[in-house]
């Protein structure tokens, strides 16, 4: 039957969504139940947080700079280049900071989680851990999810700050505008709902990217080729889901915090 491959693909998708939902639910419950492996949490926090700092700083600076360049060109048509600071800070804090950091960190860490756990699965290390009476969900998955949520929160703040600074640098050195005016506008028009919105999102994104990275890693099959496949699936799924959830979250948060 010509429809068989489509039916099989559809079943696979439904099964994957079901498996991920169960995995994510169990991982979420484990965040609140002892034992929590603090040494593993600290190691992962270092790998995910400190390790991702350089890419977050660089992407934040560049994005802020680009935003300032683009917005100044458009705003000058209305004689409103003075609001560049407001534009850059609001865009960075409400949207680009969390999303960009989420996508960058998922590229770096969802892939590393999927490949690391996937390698452990194909070499039977996960089975060995279970055979030794240790729950790999608690020992390997929970610390990764917990540390990603915490570190993505702080990395987003860093990205926001770098974005505003990047925008300031472009405004002063390339657009030859007043730096004080830029920073005043960036600060004055920033309200608590903007900050809350920008800081709630990374909590969701951190959970999504880490749970997807771990999920694809833990269900790896097919040897080393399977590890590569799991890595690709983890990065693609995490990035797409972050952007999609951002759309949903923005709608909800705009209603709650207009």
């Amino acid at each position: 039957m010509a429809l068989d491959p489509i039916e099989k693909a559809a079943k696979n998708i439904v099964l994957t969504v079901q498996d991920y939902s169960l995995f994510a639910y169990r991982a979420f419950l484990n965040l609140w139940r002892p034992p929590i492996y603090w040494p593993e949490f600290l190691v992962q926090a270092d790998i995910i947080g400190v390790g991702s700092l350089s890419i977050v700083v660089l992407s934040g600076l560049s994005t802020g700079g680009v935003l300032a360049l683009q917005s100044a060109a458009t705003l000058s048509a209305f004689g409103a280049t003075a609001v560049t600071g407001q534009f850059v800070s609001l865009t960075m804090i409400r949207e680009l900071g969390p999303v960009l950091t989420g996508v960058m960190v998922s590229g770096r860490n969802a892939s590393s989680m999927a490949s690391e756990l996937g390698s452990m699965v194909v070499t039977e290390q996960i089975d060995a851990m279970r055979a030794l009476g240790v729950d790999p969900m608690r020992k390997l998955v929970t610390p990764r999810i917990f540390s990603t949520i915490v570190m993505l929160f702080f990395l987003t703040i860093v990205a926001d700050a770098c974005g505003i600074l990047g925008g300031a640098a472009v405004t002063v050195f390339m657009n030859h505008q007043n730096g004080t005016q830029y920073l005043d506008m960036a600060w004055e028009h920033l309200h608590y709902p903007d900050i809350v919105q920008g800081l709630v999102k990374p909590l969701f994104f951190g959970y999504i990217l880490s749970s997807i990275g771990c999920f694809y890693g833990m269900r790896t099959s097919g040897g080393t080729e399977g590890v590569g496949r799991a890595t690709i699936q983890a990065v693609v799924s995490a990035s797409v889901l972050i952007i999609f959830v951002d759309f949903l979250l923005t709608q909800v948060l705009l209603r709650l915090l207009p």
Partner: protein
Amino acid sequence: MNASPISQPQSPAPAADDGPVVAFRNVSIAFDGPPVLEDVSFSIAPGETRVLLGPAGVGKSVLLKLTNGLLRPDCGSIQLFGEEISHMPEEMLFPLRTRTGMVFQEGALFDSLTVRDNVAYQLIQERVPDDEIDSRVRDALRFVELEETFDLYPASLSGGMRRRVAIARAFIHQPELLLYDSPTGGLDPVTSTTIIELIVKERDVCHTPSLMVTHRLQDAFILCNHRFDPELGRMVLLPKGETDPNTTFLMLEEGRLIFDGSLHELVKSQNKFVREFLQ
């Protein structure tokens, strides 16, 4: 080979009512296709060593993973230490698994941990003091004659050494059941004999019930025809015609258990598949 420096189980907690340590009843399992195991029934008594024979791909490793709940059967019943585990939640299986030791096909050592941390993995989780861990790890490594590898990483060990470290990891917690998944697979004959000698030593010193999966007939025969001599510190051949009474055989053919009995019964079996396998 030295006599066992591993302390013997103080009270080798037998299964409930001294019944079988493991009991399979009509167990079947399939993975997206024909059954891998079909209607398998057998048991392991306290102190018994069972050797599961069969060519590659007949479901031997699957059966081993069903034994400690790493896989779940589609139907049938599996009892481990008298408790039904086929539908037991994963959280409840972890305490039961700590009472078993398992040696995986390729060792399955944690490659980011040293030999010391690999062998001590279970003790570390139980927050045993470091001094005691070091002492027990050295004892376990001495048992497998690899004391010098204490600080090394698995990547720097040979295949045979990794397998012996895996055995030390399985032995250190003084398990009440040992599961060996092709412990000599892919090893040269000399190293294979060393591994089998360790298994014989464990069987005769600690009397832990075990299930060993292998497709190598010579390993199974060595296990059955030898005993460990603590005075000589090595295994010795049993007198001609004698076999270890507690070592018995199982054989799988395409997911079905076709033989369950002693070495004597195995060699006398008229089953066509058994005859072909033996030849």
